[in-house]
């Protein structure tokens, strides 16, 4: 229920976390650079994180923390330097786009034109990246978001996250080809599996029912654009 308000981060010290190595699966395109996850990686020897044993694709982005030697506990949350790198990267990209790709404004009535705002934002992002880095170096840490179903004492369960992303991508690839009823069924069933539910048949029934109900209520009832796909003419 993060809906109404963001939890104020109280800036408290983090308990030492097992290092998390995020895997960034096939990014959907260059826009992901502006909207992707912060490439974070803090690998330390002797990590007991089960995810570290698997074969995650290392984030390609430059990460100042990656070559840092792990210090004895209490270890600062070095993965935060990944956020710094991400902010700097976005800032650089915005400035690059503004200076090279945006054309000149033709309209003389608009003295500002399209360039200054992105350039200003890019510069501010670089400034914030520097301040952020200083904050991290001085021991600052953001508090991970808590919630009803969130247990922050366990390390990030990358297997579940990757399976969920997989189910999500399968839906994105198949939705136009096979239609919402089939791809949505796969999405729900796959997500329930990823989250640890093993009632295969019951889940399939729920998934099919949910897809059919949403298709008939929204696509046929309310005129929402949901593809029928291969089931065109049957539904």
């Amino acid at each position, binding site marked *: 229920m*993060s809906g109404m*308000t963001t939890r104020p981060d109280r800036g408290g010290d983090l308990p030492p976390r097992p290092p998390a190595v995020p895997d960034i699966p096939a990014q959907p395109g260059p826009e992901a650079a502006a909207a992707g996850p912060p490439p974070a990686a803090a690998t330390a020897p002797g990590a007991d994180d089960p995810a570290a044993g698997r074969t995650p694709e290392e984030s390609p982005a430059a990460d100042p923390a990656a070559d840092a030697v792990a210090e004895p506990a209490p270890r600062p949350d070095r993965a935060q330097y990944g956020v710094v790198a991400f902010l700097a990267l976005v800032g650089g990209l915005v400035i690059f786009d503004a200076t090279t790709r945006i054309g000149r404004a033709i309209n003389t009535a608009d003295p500002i034109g399209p360039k200054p705002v992105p350039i200003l934002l890019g510069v501010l992002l670089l400034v914030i990246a520097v301040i952020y880095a200083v904050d991290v170096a001085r021991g600052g840490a953001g508090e*991970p978001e808590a919630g*009803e*179903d969130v247990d922050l004492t366990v390390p990030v369960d990358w297997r579940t*996250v990757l399976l969920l992303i997989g189910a999500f991508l399968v*839906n994105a690839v198949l939705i136009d080809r096979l239609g919402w009823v089939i791809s949505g069924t796969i999405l729900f069933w796959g997500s329930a599996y990823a989250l640890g539910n093993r009632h295969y048949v019951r889940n399939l029934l729920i998934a099919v029912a949910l897809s059919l109900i949403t298709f008939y209520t929204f696509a046929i009832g*309310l005129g929402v654009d949901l593809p029928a796909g291969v089931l065109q003419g049957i539904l």
Partner: protein
Amino acid sequence: MDNFANLLDGFANVLTPMNLLFALIGVTIGTAVGVLPGIGPAMTVALLLPVTYGMEPAQAFIMFAGIFYGGMYGGSTTSILLNTPGESSSVVTAIEGNKMAKAGRAAQALATAAIGSFVAGTIATVLLVVVTPPVVQFAISLGAPDYFALMLLAFVSVTAVLGASRVRGFASLLLGLVIGVIGIDQSGQQRLTFGLPQLADGIDVVVVAVGIFAVGEALWIAAHLRRRSGEVIPVGQPWLGKQDWKRSWKPWLRGTAFGFPFGAVPAGGAEIPTFLSYVTEKKLSKHPEEFGRGAIEGVAGPEAANNASAAGTLVPMLAIGLPTNATAAVMLAAFEGYGIQPGPLLFTRESSLVWTLIASLFVGNLLLLVLNLPLAPAWARLLRIPRPYLYAGILFFASMGAYAVNAQPFDLYLLLALGLLGFGMRRFGLPILPLIVGVILGPRAELQGRRALQLSGGELHGLVGGWVSWLIYATIAVVLLWPLIGRFVVRPLRGRLVTA
């Protein structure tokens, strides 16, 4: 009494069988998602936006009004029965509410929350009716420089006042502003589109909101899923004894008095008034020894403050077009989705729609009370939903909603990228609200800023208008420099007072 007549017309619009049905659907969905962990009202409105584009705007807003108040109420049920509040505004309710529930007084805690929410919501909506028209009158006199300054104030205040870490808030705000820049700008130039035609119209706010709230939240929770869900305290029919009524009604009124003004000013939020209400009730109570062990005043006051503040946020949203919390921000995007510009002109151009929305707030509030007192045991059962189904369902509806915006799979990839961004922000403690406000208000701020500079021929003094903008810039300076002011002005002064 023109407004009063308008309000009566609004009631006439709401009280048709069809619209009452939409109000009922709204409060039911709102309460359900408020009760369910992982889903909040902002996410719900965002998810429902694309599927309501086929409806009449009035009907959609009647439903959103129900979701708005229903979500507030549902959140308190969760924090009382489960003691793990998901929203910071419900944190205070959980302190005494969960203690009451554990002591076998869950029914009374839920009842005082429900009735308190109704009382506060009704009074606050009356205040909304009284306060908004003068604010609109004032807002009409504002020019482009004043609007630009106001939006800067909104940026600075959601970033610097709410949340403890300013640098993380500003990082989040800047990312949001950058997302808002993507697309063809007002002079026809493509910005940050990288030649992708799908990005030419910018990223739809629905995709951003659903990605950051729904997908980001689902992935984050999945990564840390509590394998044994918290103990849900069983509850029967909520009711209040005579003594409880006596102890509740004053906290309700005081909570409302705290909540409404804080909601109505930018960045007031719900945390401060709920906390203030709690502290006040503790101080005024005849049973201070009960605080910490389940005092009913500690539920009644903060819950009323929470609801009143929610109504308060609608004042700047409707009158000026400034959202101060996430739900208001998404509702602002909803107005734009229907081609309606929020702001002072809303009351003249879309008078009927606005007053219908306000009337539906009253109706929704009453429906909530009627619905929630008998249905509380059912809502409590909702808390036992198997978590795999809950989060699989969130991803399912998120994908459906995002796809429905433009009917293109590209938006689903975008949704995932934004979901991963939301995941990273939760991991590193970056607040979400500044990003959403940045995405929604950024383009509007740029428009007003460029308009202001157009009038001055590009000279920077064009950004400063009348006394209003001076006042706002002064406020921004105080907010930004507050840590320095605190160190060099407030603390020495206090020290001198102590020595004197």
